[in-house]
């Protein structure tokens, strides 16, 4: 048994920073007067930047610590960087919004940071138990965030639905873990892989456990048929929380999903390939087709988020170096464009209330050219039209699929992209080709503008010069594959 070494402390340094940051936010919250909570947000963003710097300093390390429960490798670092950016943009989006919605409390930022820490543990977990713990830390924080707008019945209801279905799904996940433990005698990912490899057991229990894991993770990444919570929760939760929820937990879910299936279960790859491929197809189909009929923009983006989980799963199914790195790149890109789209929804207020209906965007181009232009870029990116990052992401995913011989998956994905163009274009149509009704007030404090600038630069830069991100993703998984 290896002795406890300094490596352990090094490997959890990023998590320690983020957790201390969260605790510090809780403490400072006590000292700050009621309407000065925005300093906590700036403090959190600064802290995340420090965490990001420290994490990048650890790049290149390959630490296997805590008796195999926790690893720090390129894969984990890639996702941690993604989480920092997502959390920072989400916090910047929130500052003005939480004030307007009477939910300007210090705990808000602390909860985002706790959720981030949970996601980081998920990305680093090399043992089903540590992954489960990370997942719960993330999920519990996000349940509370979803219901943070206490006065709004919709928000309360979103929290309730998210909580009930989330708890249910983690029960399923846990039972799957228990079966795997019963069959293999370990919850360590490498240990499970070695056990399956040795051929000691090849019965139905393992397949059953795999299906339960797919269901558990499927809930977190919002894949059909585990998507029923998504539209209601996305619509009901405060928009700034929806923005965070649609990228962070989804990416974290994929991080754990990918690591578990590619490192622990490669022995039964043919089995899970079929299941995940069908999930991918259903997600792309239902997500895109149902999105067409939505009139609430948050609900439309919820279905679009389901569809995007489907595209990411196309890369997942393709597997191998190409497949895994394509999913990573896709999630990174999705983070920028989706946060951008939700940020614009946060920004838009009409006649004194939050503009969440599609028709609230009518004629935006006349009133505010910049806002309309930004929303247009995000919509084109979500639709996968060059030169935005969304195109590069889809291109890589479909390329990986064709390379691995899943041409039919790529064909379905492409056809569904054509369908999706319709509802993303509709937003643009409303903004540019309709007359405005009612009064626009754009709630755009500097922080939100900054967040949108980061998002749009991310979308355009990755769209035109993706080489850096591709290499980052590929180098990150070099140690894992």
């Amino acid at each position, binding site marked *: 048994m290896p002795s406890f070494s300094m490596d352990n402390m090094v490997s959890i340094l990023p998590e320690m920073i983020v957790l201390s940051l969260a605790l510090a936010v809780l403490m400072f919250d006590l000292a700050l007067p009621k309407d000065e909570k925005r300093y906590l947000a700036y403090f959190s963003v600064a802290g995340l930047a420090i965490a990001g710097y420290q994490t990048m300093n650890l790049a290149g390390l390959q630490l296997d610590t805590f008796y195999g429960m926790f690893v720090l490798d390129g894969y984990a670092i890639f996702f941690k960087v993604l989480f920092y950016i997502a959390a920072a943009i989400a916090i910047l989006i929130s500052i003005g919004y939480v004030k307007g919605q009477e939910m300007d409390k210090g705990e808000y930022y602390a909860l985002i940071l706790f959720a981030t820490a949970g996601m980081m543990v998920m990305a680093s977990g090399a043992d089903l*138990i540590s992954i*489960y*713990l990370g997942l*719960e830390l993330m999920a*519990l924080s996000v*349940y*509370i965030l979803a*219901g943070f707008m*206490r006065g709004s*019945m*919709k928000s*309360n*209801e*979103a*929290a*309730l*639905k998210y*909580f*009930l279905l989330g*708890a*249910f799904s*983690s*029960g*399923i996940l*846990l*039972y799957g*873990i*228990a*079966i795997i*433990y*019963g*069959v293999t*005698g*370990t*919850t360590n990912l490498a240990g499970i892989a070695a056990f399956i490899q040795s051929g000691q057991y090849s019965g139905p229990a393992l397949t059953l456990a795999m299906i339960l894991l797919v269901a558990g993770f499927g809930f977190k990444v919002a894949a059909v048929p585990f998507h029923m919570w998504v*539209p*209601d929760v996305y*619509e*009901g939760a405060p928009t700034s929380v929806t923005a965070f929820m649609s990228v962070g937990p989804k990416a974290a879910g994929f991080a754990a999903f990918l690591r578990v299936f590619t490192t622990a279960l490669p022995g039964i790859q043919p089995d899970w390939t079929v299941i995940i491929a069908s999930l991918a197809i259903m997600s792309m189909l239902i997500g895109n087709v149902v999105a067409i009929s939505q009139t609430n923009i948050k*609900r439309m983006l919820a279905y679009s988020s389901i569809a995007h989980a489907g595209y990411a799963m196309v890369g997942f199914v393709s597997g191998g170096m190409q497949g895994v790195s394509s999913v990573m790149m896709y999630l990174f890109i999705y983070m920028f464009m989706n946060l951008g789209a939700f940020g614009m929804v946060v920004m838009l207020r009409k006649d004194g209330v939050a503009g969440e209906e599609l028709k609230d965007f009518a004629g935006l181009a006349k009133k505010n050219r910049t806002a309309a232009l930004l929303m247009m870029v995000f919509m084109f990116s979500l639709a996968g039209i060059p030169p935005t990052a969304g195109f590069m992401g889809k291109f890589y995913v479909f390329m990986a699929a064709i390379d691995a011989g899943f041409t039919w998956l790529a064909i379905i994905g492409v056809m569904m992209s054509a369908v999706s163009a319709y509802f993303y274009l509709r937003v643009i149509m409303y903004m540019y080709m309709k007359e405005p009704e009612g009064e626009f007030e754009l709630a755009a404090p500097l922080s939100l503008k900054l967040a949108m600038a980061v998002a749009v630069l991310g979308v355009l830069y990755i769209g035109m010069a993706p080489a850096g991100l591709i290499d980052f993703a590929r180098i990150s998984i070099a140690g894992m594959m």
Partner: protein
Amino acid sequence: MVPISHILILAGMIFALGVVCVFAHRNILMILIGVEIMLNAAGLAFVAGSMRWGMPEGQIFVLFLMAMAASEVSVGLALVVYLHKRKRSVNIDDFNEMKD
């Protein structure tokens, strides 16, 4: 000595009961209890696995699990109590602000 398969079958039955409880009841508290039953079934399966392999890990995981379940319930109950205060109802069908 009880054979391991018996324990696993029992765990499976408890898990199934939990799932049925979640889907059959409209009362939020009952749904929460169903979820807890599912978690406990998983705990039982862990203990069985621990016995089979002669390793203490499974038992330790159950401790983890109990702590997790407790924190989950605290969040859940807080939500339910608040919602009951606002709507005077714990029936899941009463919460239907959002519809397609």
